[in-house]
């Protein structure tokens, strides 16, 4: 593999220098790291474990709402606050703001992870397409139900406490989101080098056999989903505070935008690899931001076409393609004899 430290150095330099050199694009950079978190967490399930969830955005929205409820609920009556739906500005002292944010983010992460356990109990008996459709259903239903819950502002949404002081907090949330992306990456790097990844890869390759070999598949699946939910919960809490206004369908549970982006980015970069989702996220976000406004309403059509082309013609993704092309650089040894046999076998099966 290409010199690892160059890659780390480049990423770090990009993360630190990018917003310093181009401060006007700071919030774009924040969203970029959010995208990296999205595709990395999707890949735990979709890439490493072979469980393709279409509803991971659920945990993002849950994190956002839980954090908001804690932040406001600590100091005010939540129902009265939400009823104003942002019309009356309530001032939080800096101390209240940061305590609320910290406690809210932690609660968001924990609640999201716990909900993953609860939903895991429901959906993990489902395999393949049922799992994908079931998770999609959960995410859609969550958006609809939140929209009907008046305590958190219902469909009209609610505004969050404003960032204290003169600045609008863009730089503050950039640093937090960047740190979240880095910690997610480091955690997954550690995780993928452990026995845990062997177990979830075995589930991907053949769940029945893995179960037969004594792997407690249900437990591994639940833990893997809780891990993605944990990081997604934090990302939702941060993003909600960054935008300052949350609303169920477009901001918290955007199934057809963020929810699909995370799948697409992981596939584009190469699912089941550590760097693939990151490369896919950066590439996708940059292309999207550069071309989006010039497409004049056709951008969503283009998004659909990109999904189809990506899935049908280029499913291995960029990193997967590179591994096929230059396996020796990734430390993969190709046994040509075995490869030939494999081909014969697949012929025979056909």
């Amino acid at each position, binding site marked *: 593999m290409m010199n690892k430290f160059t890659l780390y150095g480049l990423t770090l330099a990009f993360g630190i220098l990018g917003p310093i050199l181009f401060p006007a694009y700071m919030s774009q950079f924040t969203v970029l790291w959010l995208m990296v978190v999205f595709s990395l967490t999707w890949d735990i399930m979709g890439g490493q474990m072979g469980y393709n969830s279409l509803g991971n955005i659920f945990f993002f929205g849950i994190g956002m709402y839980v954090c908001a409820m804690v932040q406001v609920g600590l100091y005010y009556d939540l129902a009265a606050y939400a009823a104003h739906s942002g019309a009356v500005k309530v001032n939080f002292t800096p101390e209240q703001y940061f305590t609320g944010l910290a406690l809210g983010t932690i609660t968001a992460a924990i609640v999201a992870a716990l909900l993953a356990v609860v939903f895991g109990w429901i959906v993990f008996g489902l395999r393949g397409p049922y799992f994908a459709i079931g998770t999609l259903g959960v995410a859609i239903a969550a958006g*609809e139900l939140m929209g009907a819950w008046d305590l958190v502002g219902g469909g009209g949404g609610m505004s969050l406490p404003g960032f204290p002081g003169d600045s609008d907090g863009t730089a503050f949330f950039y640093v937090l989101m960047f740190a979240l992306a880095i910690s997610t990456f480091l955690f997954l790097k550690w995780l993928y080098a452990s026995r845990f990844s062997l177990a979830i890869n075995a589930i991907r390759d053949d769940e029945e056999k893995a179960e037969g070999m004594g792997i407690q598949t249900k437990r591994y699946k639940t833990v893997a989903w809780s891990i993605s939910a944990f990081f997604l919960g934090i990302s939702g809490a941060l993003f909600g505070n960054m935008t300052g206004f949350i609303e169920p369908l477009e901001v918290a549970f955007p199934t057809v935008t963020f929810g699909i982006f995370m799948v697409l980015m992981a596939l584009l970069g190469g699912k089941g690899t550590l760097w693939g989702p990151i490369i896919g996220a950066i590439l996708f976000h940059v292309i999207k931001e550069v071309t989006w406004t010039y497409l004049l309403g*056709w951008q969503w059509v283009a998004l659909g076409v990109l999904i189809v082309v990506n899935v*049908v013609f280029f499913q291995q993704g960029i990193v997967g393609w590179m591994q096929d092309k230059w396996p020796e650089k990734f430390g993969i040894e190709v046994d040509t004899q075995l490869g030939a046999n494999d081909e014969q076998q697949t012929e025979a099966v056909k």
Partner: protein
Amino acid sequence: MLNNISLLGMAPFLNVQLLLDGLLIGALFALAAYGLALVWGVMNVKNLAQGDFVIMGGYIAVVFAENGIHPIIALPVAAIVMFAFGWLLYISIIKRVIERDLFTSLLATFGIAIVLAQALNLMFGPDVQVAESGFETLVLFDGNVTVSQAKLVAFGLASVLAVGLVTFMKKSRMGQAIRATSQDARAAKVMGIDTERVYAFTFSLNAAICGAAGVLIAMVWVIQPFFGITHSIRSFVIVTAAGFGNLPGVIMAGLGLGAMEQFSGFVLGAEFQQATVVGVLIAVLIWRQVQQNKHRQVVE
């Protein structure tokens, strides 16, 4: 919510009204779901663009109605147009996903669904539309229950289509070839069936069925570019509950879902319609799991 329930208890005719509306619309859901069961059973492709085919058919009817042509005439036209569209889609994309893993077909058709919904949105705008059919409304039980004739006509046409489909699958050479392929594709190939052509035909037939169902739905209900995903989920609910290759089951599940939606729409409010469909989906999936767990031992 409780008020609405007690209202149902006090006015028995309201129940009849909701049930009737639900059954009449449910027949149309069952039609689209039968198409999905066909494609799923024969090709093992889970088509998430199912609902968008329905909406496309619906817009053909709307275009006809706007130009002063009765939407019923749009029925054969929509079926033919959608058949051709399905064939094109098969040759360009679906052909390449049949032999791949399960998620590929699901995500590819999801991509197609996004493209179709957005293209329709650009062409017709996001407003809710209806194909005016000019039918009268029948009044039953001293004015307590009303039924629009359009719904009865749509129900009748859907039944005719269903009978026609079943006859086609049983009697015609192509229908027999489709059933043979779904039983064992390899054996069918050995026996000289051009399975590639069977797949193409099955997918196009499904698109045609959806197109026809869409015309009827546009006549009796409303369509909007982004309603496709709800229709897709409905089809999935029905097929998952009934299992494929089980036509009576599909019809019963379709009618049941239609009635359930009407009642929940009345009791909870119309904005919960999508949530109801999704809720039923999750309930069905859990129920399937409980069933499965009886057959299978898991490491605990």
